[in-house]
């Protein structure tokens, strides 16, 4: 009972903070402390969101498709690279600096280049999402593989297990927690990555919508799309949590 009560309080605190924040925001707008063309009120944003709903959903679909393929590519590459780096020392030495360097390249700088190389379609966006998402996956998985208990590996080997079996029964399941933590980061990166690449060239997508409303100084629509992007990211993170919950059944048995 007490625990349940505490649970409710735990949920009320962040909710209250958000409501308070929106309240202050609405108050500032209502009092006219900031001109309304610079800071639209919460109700303006809501109205813009409802008014442009169909259009927003259309753009969101495009962005989500790009993010999906990019994320899928990022996960695939992450798996391949981390497995190679774990199994072969030369791959570890060879890939490590390369993997790190890809993360030092500013996304903003590479996106227009990708557009020049691959056109205004979906692919430059997908590639950019791959570049931003594969890194957390690779590092997370690699860390998981490397942290496998050496005694456990010895035990498996004493049972006659080969390298593939050690990987399948020890390393892979042992790195699932890491994988899901990385995936949680990567899904948010995938949305942001897709939006940024849409800014820099494209016909559809939330990024394109953003540029358009910014150019027409429609700040209420700008806020509406920001809200939508946040909501999408949150939703995807929840989805990852759900996936983790269904995949890692044994975690549920722990108190």
């Amino acid at each position, binding site marked *: 009972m007490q625990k349940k009560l505490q649970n409710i309080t735990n949920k009320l605190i962040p909710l209250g903070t958000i409501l308070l924040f929106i309240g202050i925001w609405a108050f500032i707008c209502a009092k006219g402390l900031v001109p309304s063309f610079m800071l639209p009120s919460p109700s303006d944003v809501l109205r813009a969101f409802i008014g442009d709903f169909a259009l927003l959903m259309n753009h969101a679909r495009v962005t989500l498709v790009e993010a999906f393929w990019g994320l899928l590519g990022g996960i695939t590459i992450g798996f391949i690279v981390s497995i190679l780096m774990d199994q072969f020392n030369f791959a570890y030495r060879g890939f490590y600096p390369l993997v790190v360097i890809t993360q030092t390249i500013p996304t903003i700088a590479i996106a227009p280049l990708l557009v020049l190389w691959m056109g205004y379609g979906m692919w430059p966006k997908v590639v950019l999402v791959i570049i931003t998402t594969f890194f957390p996956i690779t590092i997370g998985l690699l860390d998981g593989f490397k942290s496998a208990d050496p005694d456990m590996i010895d035990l498996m080997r*004493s*049972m*006659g297990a080969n390298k593939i079996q050690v990987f399948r029964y020890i390393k892979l399941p*042992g790195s699932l927690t890491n994988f899901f933590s990385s995936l949680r980061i990567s899904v948010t990166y995938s949305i942001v990555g897709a939006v940024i690449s849409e800014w820099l060239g494209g016909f559809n997508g939330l990024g394109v919508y953003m540029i358009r409303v910014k150019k027409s100084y429609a700040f209420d629509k700008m806020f509406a799309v920001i809200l939508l992007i946040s909501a999408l990211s949150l939703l995807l993170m929840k989805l990852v949590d759900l996936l983790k919950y269904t995949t890692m059944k044994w975690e549920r*048995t722990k108190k």
Partner: protein
Amino acid sequence: MALLEAKNLAQSFEGQEIISDVSIELGPNEIVCLIGTSGVGKTTLFQILSGLHQPTAGHVVLEGQDITGQAGKISYMLQKDMLLPYRTIEDNIALPLIIQGTHKKEARVRIQPYFEEFGLEGTQKKYPSQLSGGMRQRAALLRTYMFSHKVVLLDEPFSALDALTKHEMHTWYLKIMEKIQLSTLFVSHDIDEAIYLSNRVLVMAGTPGTIIKEIPIVRTMKNRDEFGVSPQFLEYKKQLLAFLR
């Protein structure tokens, strides 16, 4: 004839000898304890016996067959139960069979009869985190047994358990060994445990480590708990302590 024989085993790493001239014989149904200070090479010896490392000299013979350096013949169990947290107890126990190429479904069927014998009924679908320390250790032992039916190597198998559970496990282990006809070679830091359980105690010491003394344990009384508090028991303990000093 000895079931498991280690003949003049030696191992060195980077020019430094860790163990030298270690010979051990283990007969059917026998419990032999290997006792010695830390760093004397007991783990190295077990790694050689289980085929994880190739010795620099000597042979390991199982039932007359030379198995030196071959993994997959004898398994060992550690102080940590090493159950995989993400597999159910039944899938943990089936693992050695699966590794040897048995289909998962068939492996599950083949292990079922042993659950009762090992006092693990009803734990099949549970995860290791839901079991007590003693139960987990039993499950780990059953997994080791599924792998090699004749000889098990145990590296400080009961040292992580509390005193009461440990005593319970000792009694249980002696019973189960008799029932399933198992021979055991185990490492212990606990002199009492060594004398209580074993037919013979081997003392390992020196650099490089070697077996300096073999003490057969003779129990004149039937009840082991009585033996555990007898002057005889203390005499053995005194002897062993002298060698370990």
